[in-house]
């Protein structure tokens, strides 16, 4: 895959003395939706955190747009368009919806076209426009997830990584959010998804990676993976 926007090679990372990632590798193609799946605790979230720099990798490389960004701090990566919508939303609960979005567009790069992005977010999520003055902590779970994604979009991402989109969401809301992701992808945005709802994730993915024990187990087109019985059982929980 020569048109990989993001290329992760042999990434190693962990918490304190506990190593979680043992040399994981994957690539995200431009304008495609790539999914990482695997059992709870396999290291998917850790992978995303290490990629964006929220966690310092102890080994391996992260190439973004051909540039080695492995050692950059998270805010510098975000400022280049490598953006993570973290697990559990992580909103600024005491701040309003509008302020949360404004923080999303904090970096110099993103603030240049702030108005355009805000417009796009409010078009994608009219609910947020209605509630722009409301504090983020008072939103419903679905609205919070919308805000989390919208805030990520405000960062003008070249690649948007979304961790556990479905966490605690009702199926209807989930459906809507997946539709939005699909829209964004079709619009040309590169997306990396970590998701426990394998059915939904696979339905949308262009390519999927199976992660196990902090390493890459296998990868391929989602249909092919879903057809492999040993993968279904051991890693997908199907």
């Amino acid at each position, binding site marked *: 895959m020569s048109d990989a926007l993001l290329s992760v090679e042999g990434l190693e990372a962990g918490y304190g003395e506990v190593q979680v990632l043992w040399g994981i590798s994957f690539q995200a193609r431009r304008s495609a939706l790539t999914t990482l799946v695997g059992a*709870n605790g*396999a290291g998917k979230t850790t992978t995303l955190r290490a990629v964006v720099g929220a966690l310092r990798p102890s080994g391996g490389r992260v190439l973004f747009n051909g540039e080695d960004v492995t050692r950059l701090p998270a805010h510098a990566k975000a400022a280049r368009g490598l953006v993570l919508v973290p697990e559990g939303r992580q909103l600024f609960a005491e701040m309003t919806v509008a302020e949360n979005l404004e923080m999303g567009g904090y970096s110099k790069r993103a603030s240049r076209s702030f108005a355009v992005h805000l417009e796009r977010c409010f078009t994608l999520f009219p609910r947020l426009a209605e509630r722009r003055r409301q504090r983020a902590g008072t939103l419903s779970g679905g609205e919070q997830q919308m805000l989390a994604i919208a805030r990520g979009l405000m960062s003008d991402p070249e690649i948007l990584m979304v961790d556990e989109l479905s966490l*605690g969401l009702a199926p209807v809301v989930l459906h809507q959010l997946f539709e939005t992701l*699909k829209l964004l992808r079709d619009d040309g945005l590169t997306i990396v998804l970590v998701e426990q709802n*394998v*059915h*939904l994730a696979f339905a949308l993915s262009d390519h999927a990676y199976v992660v196990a024990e902090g390493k890459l187990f296998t990868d391929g087109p989602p249909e092919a993976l879903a057809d492999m019985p040993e993968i279904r059982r051991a890693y997908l929980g199907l």
Partner: protein
Amino acid sequence: MTAILEVQEVGKSFGGVRAVDRLSFVIEEREILGLIGPNGAGKSTLFNLINGVFRPDAGRVRFCGADITGASPHRVARLGLARTHQIVQPLEAMTVLENCAVGACFGRENLPRARAQEAAREAAVFVGLEDRLDTPAAQLTIAGKKRLELARALAAQPLLLLLDEVLAGLNPTEVERMIGVIRRLRERGITILIIEHLMQAIMSLSDRIVVLNYGKRLAEGTPASVANDPQVIEAYLGDPALARELAGKTRA
């Protein structure tokens, strides 16, 4: 059979959100009851309501016939109800043995320090931590910490054990081992309430399963009946129809 734990109409809200909503169920002695449901369904909250970390807004919890609603966690532990945490809570600077000794000292047997050492060692060996007895807990791997959680709970000689995702984060071999450990626990006469996402594991371990969704009971029954329940498939396993629909749109 007699009920060891009765949860009656228990409810708990956080800032207007009903985490657990008038939930009732019973665990019989020496049973393994599985508790499943989507993330955020209220499973861990339920554990916290049972062992006294949270006080229920409504309803009662009875353990071995005694009303333990709103009793503080240390009293519940003393009565013989032990638990593990989904996010491991090791006493980091203390060794594996010391961690287990805390469980033994302040558990059901209320052992003096000298005798607790024995119980602690036994529990640590039981879960397979025999060669890490003097390792500070902070230096264990995730799997090791998960095991430590279990060992600490076991050292308390509990009558009822609440297991919160002890299999999460373990590799398939470790999962097999842990399942073996849990089976042997039941043989020792311990009743188990287990939260787990690994469907294979929980289906094979549990005698009965309760499915939670939005803090309410969605279904209850044998593993087989629950797995075939369309409601459960939609809420927890993912809706195949929805999945197919999305797939159609994408690939069209």
